[in-house]
């Protein structure tokens, strides 16, 4: 499977060879504890400090504002729970319908614990309504948590405009930037963001490492209570190799930002190719305000898992928001929030590129995809919007 065409980079990414090289010594030679009072541990402590600077630099933040975590989910949980604990009298949370489960399921749990949660809706492009946000904000709102860019559609929210509104009401502003980091230039110095989550394995570092940005002056309570590590904001002995890897990955991501346009060109080539060669295909979500590496395309009248398994035969990796791939029986909450018709919803495929994606790979996808889609459409009882059966089904659903 080494030669697979990997277009599922929003799920996870390949570890960069330079990242691997940077971290390996900390799994073998330099096994010291950074907290130890001896030179052997001390040099490990220096590596952690360097990594912190590298991550801070990518975000335009100060070193002291970075806390290392184990993953994006930890970052999201720590941020929301910290914001709530720091403001015990405020019992209201605002988020969106299209967040990652790390936020949505946490919010559902918090509702059971007595908090009120507002889930902001999105329009057919996947964008928020500022009026709805303003109408939802009150003095009781503890935290507003909005993702920077959506993992499924790549749609980017106007974070700073949202932040301006949030600040007027004195709420803490948390941004899940797991998908945005390394793809969009970020600068915390000029930002309204208070807390920001990022994850290593989305930017060519290994799984099991992430970071949380905590703006200086924002009241914070730790999720993991233990030793003095991370200045008391995250107990537990540091995942040194992971931290070093994240530092290196952040440095490389920053360099790569300058050439992100190439990724966008390849994405556009893939997208334009699909839309022009294969009939009855649509782009899901805002085509303009979107991550440069992501496209989510609806192939009408067929089902996503069948497309993925067909692509897999050609060693092409992508993902789908269809019900069948999730095991949950319900298609993606993100695509449903966009109000897409079911004929598009179930046949949606996400292709997400990385800096390692080549033009040859894109050409190969464009070569085999039309045949795959054609074959599955031949099998399907629905083959056009005119099919009576299909129309009845769609209407029955709308009537519900």
């Amino acid at each position, binding site marked *: 499977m080494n030669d697979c065409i990997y277009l599922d980079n929003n799920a996870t990414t390949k570890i960069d060879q330079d990242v691997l090289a940077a971290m390996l010594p900390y799994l073998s030679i330099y096994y010291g504890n950074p907290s130890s009072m001896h030179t052997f541990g001390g040099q490990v402590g220096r590596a952690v400090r360097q990594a912190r600077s590298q991550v801070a630099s990518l975000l335009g933040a100060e070193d002291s504002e970075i806390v290392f975590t184990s993953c994006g989910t930890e970052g999201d949980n720590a941020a929301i729970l910290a914001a709530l604990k720091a403001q015990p009298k405020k019992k209201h949370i605002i988020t969106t319908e299209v967040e990652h489960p790390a936020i949505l399921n946490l919010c559902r749990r918090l509702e059971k614990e007595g908090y009120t949660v507002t889930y902001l809706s999105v329009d057919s492009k996947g964008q928020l309504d500022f009026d709805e946000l303003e109408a939802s904000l009150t003095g009781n709102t503890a935290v507003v948590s909005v993702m920077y860019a959506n993992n499924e559609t790549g749609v980017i929210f106007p974070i700073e405009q949202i932040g301006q509104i949030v600040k007027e009401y004195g709420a803490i502003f948390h941004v899940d930037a797991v998908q945005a980091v390394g793809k969009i230039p970020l600068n915390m110095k000029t930002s309204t963001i208070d807390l920001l989550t990022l994850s290593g394995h989305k930017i060519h570092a290994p799984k099991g490492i992430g970071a949380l940005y905590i703006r200086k002056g924002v009241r914070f309570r730790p999720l993991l209570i233990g030793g003095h590590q991370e200045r008391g904001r995250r107990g537990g002995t540091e995942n040194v190799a992971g931290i070093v890897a994240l530092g290196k990955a952040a440095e490389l991501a920053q360099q790569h930002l300058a050439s992100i346009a190439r990724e966008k060109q390849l994405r556009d080539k893939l997208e334009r190719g699909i839309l022009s060669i294969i009939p009855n295909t649509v782009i899901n979500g805002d085509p303009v305000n979107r991550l440069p590496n992501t496209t989510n395309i609806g192939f009408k009248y067929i*089902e*996503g898992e069948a497309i993925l398994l067909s692509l897999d035969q050609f060693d092409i990796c992508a993902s789908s928001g269809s019900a069948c791939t999730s095991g949950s029986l319900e298609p993606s909450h993100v695509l449903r929030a966009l109000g897409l018709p079911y004929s598009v919803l179930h046949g949606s495929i996400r292709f997400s590129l990385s800096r390692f994606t080549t033009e040859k790979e894109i050409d190969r996808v464009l070569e085999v995809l039309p045949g795959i889609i054609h074959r599955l459409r031949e099998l399907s009882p629905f083959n056009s919007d005119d099919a009576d059966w299909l129309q009845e089904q769609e209407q029955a659903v709308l009537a519900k």
Partner: protein
Amino acid sequence: MWDYTDKVMEHFHNPRNQGAITEKQEGEEIVTGEVGSIACGDALKLHLKIDEATKTIKDARFQTFGCASAIASSSALTELLKGRKVEEALKLTNKEIAESLGGLPEEKMHCSVMGQEALEAAIYTYKGIPLDNHEEDEGNLICRCFGVSDTKIKRIIRENNLTTAEQVTNYVKAGGGCSSCLPDIDDLLEEITTEKEKSIEVATTIATADRSSTAQTTKTLTNIQKITLIQQVIDREIRPVLAEDGGDLELFDIEGDLVKVILKGACNGCVSSTETLKIAIEATLKDRVLPTLTVESV
């Protein structure tokens, strides 16, 4: 990634009998059965060509919107159907479809259920039974997200010996949406477990009941004697036992040695308990009246 068998993948990549049936000869009929919907994420349109004289399925084809296992299940179904008599085909269960593929992941069992339902729909159409009168439509709606009735859930629990709500979701999707009906599904599971235990208990009681109250007879009976004796055994030995559990039985008719009865109350409506009871009642009547008697529940 799903753990599909090689057979599932083989049927998915090389499906048999795809497409519609459009041409027929004299003495053949084409019927279709449709299940699922685009909203649910899978749908199957099954086409059957039936030979009128022999009531045999001459050709079966499918059109499927769905995942790999839905396509494979449809393909396997058509293979199983070709050459079968209509009445035989109607007995096909979702389990057989899944088994013919070397099994399906639990979460994908609903794909095989879809195949069985499309088959049933096609044959009902062939027989002229209106689909609206399908018994399952008369049940109470349990899962609103996927439109699944209690009758259907109970049937699938019995046919596949399911024991958890999670399994029910995997087989018929019920409970897989908002999951607010999961407690109701648990109730149905409980109901069927109790039902099974009761029917076994009742059957045992009947089979071992004290027979001293009615005289054993071996001589040849006149028709009127036979009817009277059957009625007597039912009234004195069988009904009291059933009544203890809220059930009842009525003698409907006797045709030769065939005793037709109507099960009532708690006895009614459960396939497995009906079957168990029938055997127990039959055994009692054979023993008490005539060894050649058979019982049918109408």
